[in-house]
């Protein structure tokens, strides 16, 4: 892994900064911070080689709470700042932390391009379907009808799906988890870190103050098993309290449908097996909506490709090597004298 050798796994606490964490009590961000610190420990991240970069928002306060290098940027621009960091030093292990407004409202364009370029970053999108820091306006991921200070009679726009957007943008790694699913989230973060390239992780996060319980319809303890399908490469898409439900493709309509194992002759053989390299399947999974369908969590898509900054760095290195051979590496006089010159004497 391009980076400096990992160190012996540290205690997750070693990745906590000396700053007092200032999210609202009960905010989902705390759980995510915990999972990230655990991940850093697990991969033995070197604090000095790790950088957290964010935009603006509650989520974007994240870097202050991690004991690595950090850059709290401007609203929506974290992917651009992170790209610059990787251009200057491809060996740094860079994480981007963003909110749904930061990443998908003002920052949508940079997210598109950082994903398309496949810059090697872990991009964590804390989706609470609201603008937290500015006190609760609806966001591009808010459901239709969201009542907020800027939409007192409910929002009318249909929301964008972070995962569907990322797939459309050409992302090579798209995953999903939930703030409260600690171990699931931990697993997803490990996969994201392992992937070389832009790894987008959409994390459903509860804003207890402005959008409390908005994900209950699929995260509430009792219904979760039936409202979530945890996808794993090579495993059938089975879910439900009794693992008695599965997703299958209706080949007539080309749409997914929920089948009950055992019922009218449905066997595991009829159930789709998750292939994380299949873009079309990833799109279908990302589109599943409760209550009719379970929400797909886990690595929806992973199909690695060369990263932008390494390819660029290789070209520069190659050019420098050629210059080395020519013996005029960094020779500024040669640069100025390239092309036509004439002597006046």
């Amino acid at each position, binding site marked *: 892994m391009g980076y400096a050798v990992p160190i012996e796994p540290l205690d997750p606490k070693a990745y906590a900064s000396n700053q007092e964490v200032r999210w609202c009590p009960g905010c989902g961000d705390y759980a995510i911070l915990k999972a990230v610190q655990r991940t850093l420990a697990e991969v033995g991240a070197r604090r000095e080689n790790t950088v957290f970069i964010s935009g603006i928002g509650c989520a974007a306060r994240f870097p202050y709470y991690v004991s690595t290098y950090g850059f709290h940027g401007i609203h929506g621009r974290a992917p651009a700042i992170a790209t610059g960091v990787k251009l*200057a030093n491809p060996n*740094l292990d860079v994480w981007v932390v963003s909110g749904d407004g930061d990443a998908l409202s003002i920052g949508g364009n940079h997210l598109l391009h950082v994903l398309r370029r496949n810059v090697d970053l872990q991009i964590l999108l804390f989706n609470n379907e609201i603008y937290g820091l500015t006190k609760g306006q609806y966001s591009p991921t808010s459901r239709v009808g969201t009542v907020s200070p800027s939409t007192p009679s409910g929002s009318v726009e249909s929301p964008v799906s972070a995962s569907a957007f990322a797939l459309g943008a050409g992302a090579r790694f798209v995953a999903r988890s939930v703030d409260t699913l600690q171990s699931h989230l931990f697993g997803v973060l490990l996969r994201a870190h392992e992937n070389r390239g832009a790894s987008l992780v959409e994390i459903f996060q509860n804003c207890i103050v402005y959008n409390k319980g908005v994900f209950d319809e699929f995260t509430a303890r009792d219904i979760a098993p039936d409202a979530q399908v945890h996808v794993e490469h090579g495993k059938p898409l089975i879910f439900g309290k009794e693992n008695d439900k599965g997703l299958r493709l209706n080949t007539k309509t080309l749409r997914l449908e929920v089948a009950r194992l055992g019922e009218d002759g449905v066997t595991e053989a009829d159930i789709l097996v998750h292939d994380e390299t299949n873009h079309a399947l990833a799109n279908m999974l990302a589109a599943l909506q409760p209550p009719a369908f379970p929400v797909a969590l886990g690595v929806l898509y992973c199909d690695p490709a060369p990263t932008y900054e390494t390819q*660029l760095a290789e070209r520069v290195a190659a050019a420098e090597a050629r210059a080395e051979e020519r013996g005029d590496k960094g020779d500024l*006089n040669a640069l100025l004298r390239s092309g036509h010159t004439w002597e006046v004497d």
Partner: protein
Amino acid sequence: MEGTAAAERARPPRQTLESAVVRFAGDSGDGMQLTGNRFARATALARNDLATFPDFPAEIRAPAGTTYGVSAYQINFGARVIKTAGDEVDALVAMNPAALKVNLADLRPGGLVIVDSGAFTEKNLRKAGYEADPLEDASLAAYRVMKVDMSQHTLDTLTDSGLSKKEALRCKNMWALGLVYWMFDRKRQSSIDWLNEKFAADPHVAAGTTAALNAGHAFGETAEIFTNVAAYEVPPAHIEPGLYRSVNGTEATAWGLVAGASFAGLRLVFCSYPITPASATLHALAELKDYGVTTFQAEDEIAAVCAAIGASYAGAIGVTSSSGPGMSLKTEGIDLAISTELPLVVVNAQRSGPSTGMPTKTEQADLFQAVFGRHGDSPLAVLAARSPSDCFETAIEAVRLATKYMTPVILLSDSYIANASEPWALPNVDTLPRFPVEFYKDPRDYHPFLRDAETLARAWAIPGTPGLEHRVGGLEKSADTGHISYDPANHQRMTDLRANKILGIANDIPEQTIELGPARGRLAVVGWGSTYGPISRAVSNLQAEFQAEYQAEDGDVSHIHLRHIWPLPRNLEELLGRFERILVPEMNSGQLLTLLRNQFLLPAEGLHKVTGRPFTIAEIETAIRSRLES
């Protein structure tokens, strides 16, 4: 044999000129830029001083023969020091009616116009919007006209060249060049060598173009005998000995940035988004990977400036560049660099505004934005380049200040400087001062806003440094810990620190000098940026004139030209105080003027030109005269 002898005898001596302005104009397809470049090179070899300016059409590729498809290349060369591309054209080469129509206005009365009469067809005349053929009616009465069917001559020359008619016609620019070479007594060899090299792959074309060049030259020699067209001689200028090259502002800026980065011991990460005229710098640097340059074409200007900031944060020197609307988009990002106190160089190749304006035309109207154009109290350093070659030094200075003071620096150039070329006496780079950056490494009570007591620059520690892990951001931070702080007194302190850090630069830059003229007196003409050429020529012309006329004690008028726009040189107030009047010519409605009036409460007067074109020397002479007379 005798004939030639007779001709030889008949040949009148060449008329000597101190300087001349020639403009080659034709259709975009006629290769006028290339023609002009060849002439410029031959002229440099003839030891003339010179300045050139290309004038491309705004449209990418307008239909052949249209006025908006005309491309031109102007060169001013002489036996004396040349400072501008010239006010008026002495000799205009017009390859078609549209070229004549668009460029005639700039030809001086009595000037020479050489037209390819073969191109003056019904169709072309219509396309150019001529009702009647100007070669037939009185339109050109005020000029000396040389009608030559260059097209036909070229075709005749190339009958059995193996080139198709179409290909052969493409050689007519070389025919024209040959003629002009004869007219100004230029050597052809450099161009012939160049043609053979360029078209090595295609011997027919190499031979054809060379033949056309020679034919045009021969035509001149013979024409002389039976036409009134004089031949000229422009003696060599006194030019400082040294190795020279021709350079435009774009190249010089790119090289200056590379040199600056190397002097600072940093990698150059250049992040930009294409826009006219700034794009050319991106193109130039993209070719310099062997100098370790990384270029990044971002998705927009905001991403470009933010990526440059990220690069600086990670320990490179991040540079971004743009023009017009693109500069406005960088505002928020530049403010972030000010607040995080990271080095950043922003190159602004100014163009005509507001909004999209006239993208291919020049202007100096972004000074206000550079100095004042951000939210909050947000001081930074502003520099301006005065000429194409000056971009080299100014770019180096921008990198030096950005890295030494941990601040964004805006480098103002403009569309004229970016495209214009001039001979440049090449410096020996090894003799230029280095300013290596030392990253902060000492973990002992480190925090990111520790400052150098003298420069007030904050400690630059970069990711990868163990023990110095820290966070920066756009929120206000404590001057004592670097942590976020809303403390009122601290905000005042940080606001003052940011301001004083920049003002302190004034002690680290040269005192302002006087370019030309007395150290005190009746009138100082104060300029910045690309007005350097016309101001300095106008002032030296008038100096000479006044001294001649009435032995005016060394000339009554002085020229002061600023490189440092913010902070201003520490002695500027005192310097300006020595003059009765101050005139500030700018290609805007009075921006440096505002700065000087506010800073020094001086009743400086402005001379404003906002036409998308540089000042002419005459315009500035007139303004100076009126000030001195009134």
